């Protein structure tokens, strides 16, 4: 493999990592609070705001059921307004973030809802405020589940970031399509796929290891 190809691969990997990191961070900032809201504000929950909760739930579902590639095209005006362009790595982070927010929201919601209801009874019986219940009971007890969900989101982001390559988003997907497919360089395609596999592996096992250290629910041998 030529030095040029290697440097192309290195650049593309860096672009992919940047997209995933930026979109992932932004999506966490939006998705975690949204997930908490969904988990806490439904009818009969700790802080009921049923109407708003239901509306946001519908919005989340709508975004999640839009195929990613359609989302990318559909929000081009928004992307332009935010980044000044609709192609390239910066532009690609906009749809990536937007797609990851509802996903993260749902995994956070699920993790929080899975906390044993008896703990809420115990907390209320101890005179906890709703804020204390969230910060001292729900979040610490849900943290392993949240980390597992975020790992899943990061892995999905790697996959989606390869897709934005198809619309000029840069990164490994872009490289694979332009060199591997259009210029028919199978070794380039292979290298791209291998790097993606390794990235996903690292994310998955890193996330799982972190979740396991955080999770004290089971005895570990």
């Amino acid at each position, binding site marked *: 493999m030529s030095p040029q190809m290697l440097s192309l691969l290195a650049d593309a990997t860096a672009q992919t990592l940047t997209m995933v990191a930026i979109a992932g961070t932004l999506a966490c900032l939006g998705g975690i609070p949204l997930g908490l809201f969904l988990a806490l504000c439904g009818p009969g929950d700790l802080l009921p705001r049923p109407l708003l909760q239901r509306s946001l739930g519908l919005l989340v579902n709508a975004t999640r059921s839009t195929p990613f590639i359609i989302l990318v095209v559909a929000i081009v005006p928004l992307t332009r307004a935010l980044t000044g362009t609709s192609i390239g790595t910066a532009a690609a982070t906009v749809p990536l973030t937007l797609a990851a927010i509802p996903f993260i929201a749902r995994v956070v919601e699920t993790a929080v809802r899975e906390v*044993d209801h008896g703990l809420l009874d115990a*907390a209320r019986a*101890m005179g906890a405020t709703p804020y204390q219940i969230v910060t001292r009971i729900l979040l610490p007890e849900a943290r392993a589940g949240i980390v597992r969900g975020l790992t899943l989101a990061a892995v999905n982001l790697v996959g989606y970031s390869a897709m934005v390559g198809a619309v000029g988003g840069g990164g490994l997907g872009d490289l694979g399509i332009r060199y591997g497919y259009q210029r028919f360089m199978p070794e380039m395609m292979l290298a791209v796929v291998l790097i993606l596999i390794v990235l996903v592996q690292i994310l998955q096992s890193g996330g799982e290891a972190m979740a396991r250290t955080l999770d004290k629910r089971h*005895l570990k041998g």
Partner: protein
Amino acid sequence: MAIASAVAGSPVPALTPPADMIRLEGLRKIFGAKGKPQVTALDGIDLAVPAGSITAIIGPSGAGKSSLLRAVNLLERPDAGTVTVGGTDLTALDEASLRRARQSIGMIFQHFNLLANRTVSGNVALALELAGWQKARIAPRVTELLALVGLSDKADQYPAALSGGQKQRVGIARALAPQPQLLLCDEATSALDPETTRQILALIRQINQQLGLTVLLITHEMSVVREVADHVVVLEAGRIVEQGDVTRIFTHPHHPTTRHFLSGETGTQLPERLAVHVSPVARAGDVRLVRLHALGAIAAGPILGRLAEAGIGAGLVAGRVQPLKGQPFTALVLALDGSENTINNMVTRLRADGCDIEELGYVAADAVAAG
């Protein structure tokens, strides 16, 4: 005002603690969302729980025991009625005052409800953090509590590494941490084996005596009542059907539900093979079945002796002698064989001596013998 009088040197008037730690008046609780059938879980409950006592609520499944207990700290707000704890009407408090009031009411649960991601000491500390204790005071208090419940060596373990009994000890330490006046126990031993149950009950007794803590517990096991309770409240279909001192309830139960629970605990349920043959009137060759409860001196041996002296044949059908409040408590089902008159006289005399005798009916002598 207390400060002013202390400065002036005059004695601060001693606050007389209310004789009743809990007063429930006219409690009603109805469950059921719109359109669904409604369930009346509590149907007009009036109850006073004396300070310093251990009061047990017993009743069949669905009787409303949990609803009643959860009404005491307003985890479940009743639809009507008042809940007064330590002299304060909780139903009249705003949210913030209610939260403060809850810190003087400890609660333990059937499934312990410990935080899996906090260590044993972290779980106990949580109660103090929530109650706003200063950091520096929390650690020594936690150490003291773990010593009290016998878990000093488990301080840094996570709940997953504990047995059920140890988890409940953590639950007790957590409940006691902010120095409550009242401990509520919702089936606290129902998930434990008999030996562990006995240890936890002994701990609850010890706490009650050492700290003067009032305990209100619910259970569906009469053995729990026998081992710890001073007072018993029998609940059925959302109403109190009987209540009283534990000795009175065991020796002279009134309500059929109480009798039913008791016969399970004392092993004096009529065996099925006899129950089907029981007749309310005597036929030729029948013996008379009675259930007898007696406490203390008038225990099993002397009773059988007296029956024999009077010429009454007494077949032992079922029964047990168990400790109750430190005295032997005898519960027997006897098949009495003799003339109606002699038996009637003997029943009257035994009742006069404090025995509780319940007529169960008549059954053929050979049916008893066959068993």
